[in-house]
């Protein structure tokens, strides 16, 4: 076995586990311990399906070209466009996000990040109601009531249970799992609901109703109904009582809340509930963010432009337009005339009408790996895998910034995302 690196950060999901042990030998990476299954796969297969060289589209096909030529072409596409879109970001590091904002301002385009299709309703609700927040470390040390609402960490954030929320022993949680009550609220049985102490199975799309009834009960109002959202009032009263009587409660919520009917209203109901609970006890709420740096994308955009997503620079200053400057709307309505996609795959994930428009307009893709979007792109520029071949800063789901390390050298000539973007920025400045 070669060199073993300690405290390596995994750049896959929003947990950003920073305690991995990784062995590096002859250009191969082998996780030794503490990595989850997904993380192991990410490290072992980091070199599979890579973009082999810079490519540009010629006569209908992608052909090999030099990095210089690809950068030239990308700069030409973006500076000629009347309204380009820069999209992606969440699977790259904050240094690259800064460059994206700079580029968006320079070319007078729109910048949007992948939260637009996952936790954008959460952001909208935060802006309406506010967020009562804690770090995952605080939750590990203090929380005796953990509620998972519309999320399934045992399948999506594999180490969340053992590192932060359920089993670890903490400063005031000396017995770990035994000291915590775990509640799961979901529309179906999942691995998470099976290990929970209490499982409330609710009717699909009725999260808002249940949350608002809980809130009314906590505020001492009476509700004269037998059932709400398919759950008996008895069970709801029991949960309300548990919430009020806990010492430190937390709600983790996922796309079950943000992407079901009601969207940001569901999250607003959850945030209002937590706000009211803080009159009686300590309660916090944390969204289960997916991509490892989707939180960072919101943070960097917020810090640089004032707005966390869907920001337009066409008039030279930032404007916020959820639903108006959101990537899906812009593409589906055929409004933008060029795109730069950084470390995302909208062609695979967006509605067909949006993907079709993306295929029609000139598109630049910066990605370490071949994606569906790279197959329809006009310029494809390979980049180093952040957190493996390049360092940078990423934000964990609770907003804690963590420095990603470089653990192996990239292939010669392959640059980090931020370096590729800097080259494009320099070239755009030259072209204009």
């Amino acid at each position, binding site marked *: 076995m070669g060199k073993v690196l300690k405290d390596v950060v995994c750049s896959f999901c929003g947990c950003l586990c920073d305690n991995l042990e990784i062995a590096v030998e002859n250009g191969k990476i082998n996780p030794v311990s503490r990595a989850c299954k997904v993380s192991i796969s990410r490290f072992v297969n980091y070199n599979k399906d890579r973009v082999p060289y810079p490519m540009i589209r010629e006569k209908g096909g992608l052909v090999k070209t030099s990095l210089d030529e690809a950068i030239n072409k990308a700069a030409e596409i973006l500076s000629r*466009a*009347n*309204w380009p879109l820069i999209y992606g970001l969440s699977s790259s590091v904050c240094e690259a996000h800064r460059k994206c904002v700079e580029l968006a301002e320079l*070319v*007078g*385009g729109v910048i949007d990040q992948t939260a637009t299709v996952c936790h954008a309703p959460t952001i*909208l609700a935060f*802006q*309406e109601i506010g967020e009562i927040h804690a770090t995952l470390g605080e939750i590990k040390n203090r929380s005796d009531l953990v509620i998972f609402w519309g999320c399934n960490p045992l399948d999506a954030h594999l180490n969340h249970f053992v590192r932060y929320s359920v089993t670890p022993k903490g400063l005031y949680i000396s017995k770990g799992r035994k000291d915590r009550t775990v509640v799961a609220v979901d529309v179906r049985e999942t691995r998470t609901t099976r290990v929970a102490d209490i499982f409330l199975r609710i009717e699909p799309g009725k999260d*808002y*109703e249940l949350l*608002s*009834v809980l*809130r*009314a009960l906590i*505020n001492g*109002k009476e*509700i*004269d*109904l037998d059932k*709400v959202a398919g759950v008996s009032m008895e069970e709801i009263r029991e949960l309300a009582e548990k919430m009020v009587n806990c010492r430190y409660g937390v709600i983790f919520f996922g796309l079950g809340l943000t992407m079901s*009917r*009601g969207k940001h*209203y569901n999250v*607003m*109901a959850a945030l*209002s509930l937590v706000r009211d609970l803080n009159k009686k006890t300590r309660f916090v709420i944390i969204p289960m963010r997916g991509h490892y740096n989707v939180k960072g994308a919101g943070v960097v955009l917020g810090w640089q432009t004032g707005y966390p997503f869907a920001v337009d*620079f*066409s*008039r*030279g200053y930032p404007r*916020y337009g*959820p*639903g*108006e400057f959101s990537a899906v709307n812009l593409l589906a*309505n*055929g*409004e*933008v*005339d060029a795109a730069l996609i950084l470390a995302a795959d909208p062609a695979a994930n967006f509605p067909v009408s949006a993907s079709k428009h993306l295929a029609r307009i000139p598109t630049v893709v910066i990605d370490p790996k071949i994606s569906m979007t790279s197959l329809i792109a006009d310029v494809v520029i390979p980049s180093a895998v952040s957190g493996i071949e390049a360092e940078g800063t990423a934000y964990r789901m609770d907003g804690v910034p963590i420095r990603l390390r470089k653990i192996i050298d990239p292939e010669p000539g392959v640059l980090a995302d931020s370096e590729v973007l800097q080259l494009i920025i320099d070239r755009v400045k030259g072209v204009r």
Partner: protein
Amino acid sequence: MKQIVLVPRKLPSIPIEAEVISPEIFSGKNIEEIKELQVWNGNCKRKLGDFFSVKGVKSEDPNETHIVIQGDVSRVKYIGKEMRSGKITINGNAGMHLADEMKGGEIIVNGDAADWVATEMRGGTLKIKGNAGNMLASAHPGSERGMKEGIIIVEGNAASSLARKMRRGTIIIYGDIGDHAGSQMIAGTIICLGNIGRRPGALMKRGTIIVYGKAESILPTFIYDATYQPTFIRFYLKNLKEKLNVKLPAEMFNGDYERFHGDIAEDGKGEILLFKRKP
């Protein structure tokens, strides 16, 4: 009124932002000056005359200015932004941010309207003959209050999040309304002659939502009070019929209404009045 007629040429797919299409800005300018007004197309500054042919008579007084748009402007944003007086008629579909923060005057759309129309409206009258999009008469993101004054009449349907954070004013929808109508409403009146979607009045503090059709669901945090014949409805509807020429079913005037108060998760001083059909 003196008419200025705009006819859109073939418009680009990138939306045009034309807050200059407003009686205050058009008045006092001759046709050539109006053609020179600046609009945005993506990140390019262009002239109004690049996208529209302009004809008509110069008007000195904005109150006497009537702008007529002949054609589809569903990709033209901010028409009538902050207008205070005069009239705009759109014979076609209207784009986003129509009547944004409108303060007075009248806008008539003989077609459909896009999302974010009449955001934070402060006065005047807006009539839409077709359907309205999402967020009609709502608050801008992050803003404290939505529609503050004025009258909106939609003859078709309205999509979701109608009148979010509405503070004052009257909205009449002849057709159906989507989800979350009157959410976080502070005051004002919404009248729905069709059916209303889920969770009307979610998080409302005060205000009135009158529904002639059916409600898909009423939140459990709205408490049923009584079935009665509210006197104010008779006066209110009579006023709307006589002054604004709103077409209302005769049985609405003296019918029974089920009253719910809520949202008790908030202040709980809002009300939903559901028309009760005789069996």
